[in-house]
């Protein structure tokens, strides 16, 4: 059982490490997606827009790692996925522009923007 746990964790870490070393995140692309997709939807709902500067780097990292959107009703990664982008691209130009961007790359881009724009980040950022 112990061996099974170690192997499973190793598998996930290997995948993450492989992705991380291969891709140099583009915070500017993350900024566009966050503002054009995340914010445009949040601004219209009762939650309102969420400035990156409202959370610390650690809080954003934990939030993204937990991958729980709307208190766990669905996932954050779901809103970054190609499937979601395909669904909304007729009405959202950012989703259309990045329709073919690999999920992992776009997720890394958004994370780079949020970490950079966090309360304690290099450039605390707003939604607009």
């Amino acid at each position, binding site marked *: *059982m112990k*061996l*099974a*746990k*170690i*192997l*499973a964790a*190793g*598998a*996930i*870490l*290997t*995948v993450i*490490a*492989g992705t991380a070393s*291969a891709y140099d995140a583009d*915070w*500017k692309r993350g*900024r*566009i997606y966050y*503002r*054009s997709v995340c914010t445009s939807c949040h601004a219209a709902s009762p939650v309102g827009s969420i400035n990156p500067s409202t959370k610390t780097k650690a809080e954003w990292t934990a939030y993204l790692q937990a991958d729980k959107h709307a208190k766990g009703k669905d996932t954050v990664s779901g809103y970054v996925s190609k499937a979601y982008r395909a669904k909304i691209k007729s009405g959202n*130009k*950012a989703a*259309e*522009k990045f329709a073919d961007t690999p999920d992992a790359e776009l997720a890394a881009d958004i994370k780079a923007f949020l970490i*950079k724009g966090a309360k304690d980040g*290099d*450039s605390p950022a707003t939604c*607009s």
Partner: protein
Amino acid sequence: MRTAITRAALLLFCAGLLAATGPALAEEAKPEPKAVKLTTTADHSKFKQLQKAFASGPEVTKACLECHTEAAGQIHRTKHWKWEYLNPATNQKLGKKNVLNNYCISIAANQAACTNCHVGYGWKDNNFDFTKEENVDCLVCHDTTGNYRKVPGSGGQAFGKDTEFPPGSGKIVKGIDLAKISQKVGKTSRDTCGGCHFNGGGGDGVKHGDLDSSMATPEKELDVHMDAVGLDFTCATCHKTSSHDVAGSRYAPTAKDDKGVQTRGKPGSGNPATCVACHGNGPHKKEARLNNHATKIACQTCHIPTFARGGIPTKMEWDWSTSGKVDANGKQFVKRDEKKRIIYESRKGDFKLGENVVPEYAWFNGHVEYTLLTDKIEKGPQRTPINKLGGSAADGKSMIWPMKVFRGTQPYDPVNKTLVTPHTTGPDGYWNTLVWDKAIEEGMKDSGQPFSGKVDFVNTVMSWPITHMVAPKNKALGCADCHSKQSRLAGITGIYIPVRDNNTLVDTLGWSIVLLTLLGVLGHGALRIVTGRKH
């Protein structure tokens, strides 16, 4: 059960390993082209010159110049470096080093603060060495990380390690990772240009009105060219550089471009930053009548209906004469409006802000004459122009342009009758002391100009042709915006604009023709009915 779980885990492990090494294995089976960066021809992280710790900006520049041997020399020739420009039309020596405005007024004796926006390192007084190559700041324009910072008050220095600044203050400025930043250099961007040009006048959107941080990732409605998910123009797409010299000038603007679309290699091409350089002189394909308008009206007039419409206000008025007040404790204070925006500061005075501002309009032929420190001015009922824009309906060179007209009240010398250059920044500057005469004395000394010791305030005005925040065509002005009694062009003289204007003779003649035509048709019809004839 345990075996089954272990097997599943092993399977997952193998899958993970495969996912991580997959590309490598696939490459053996079927060679694939390697991932290529499309935005640059060189991956700077691979250069040994940049794989070391840098303590300061000039150290980075030295490394850059090992390969880019001519870059510093090119920069040294530009306005971005010299902050000086000799206008051949007026023979006035302009540039930030010489002009004044009615925002923060002047860089004289304030170099250490203002040169945070200079493309160099160390310009903190008049002893700056403009010939030194390592004084050029490559990173301020070529940073792609967004993490590059020049230290305010240092003369534009960048610190690669934690540094006490100002020296002896006990305050530590955190160093930035200059190696990492230099390894990721790339083309200029809206962010790099905007670092300074969005913040002209001392803050986001303050000066220009059509340039602020909302233009970093604008939507189509805000700027049809820079739309981050559309055409995605950078500043350099229009402001095409040549040997590091950026096209487009506020000191000698192109008000009327009749050279048509710019073709590569075409001799005598003009300014590549004009609308015409891409769109030509007859851009309206469906409504040819609009092309007639384009002979007298700048594209910007119709296509930029309002400015400061990205949610960030711009300053429209600044009254320095009300500065200097302190609270009950003798401390400086600020006042904010209902939107929490600053409208008064002890050190600066009162401001009026504007959003979605309808421009003022004027004939403009590209001729700009500045009121310089050596020019005599008279305080009177009319505002003193900081810049005088030439133009009229009759000169054949003018177009009707939209303007941000900025009105200020600023200190001047009532004895010598000149504008003045107060020293505002730093511990002994006005913003700290609130004492005008000392601040002006120091600033004028730095400018090499006399100061009588007397201080008064004069109303001034400065015009800024508006050219960014181009709206989509369906948001451009309509006919009635100008052709009505409430015309936007109410102040434009020398031209007859139907509906806005009335000429009794023309109107009587026109309506008479309409009436006579109507009578003719009715009379003809009546005769046919009476006579029963078909023809």
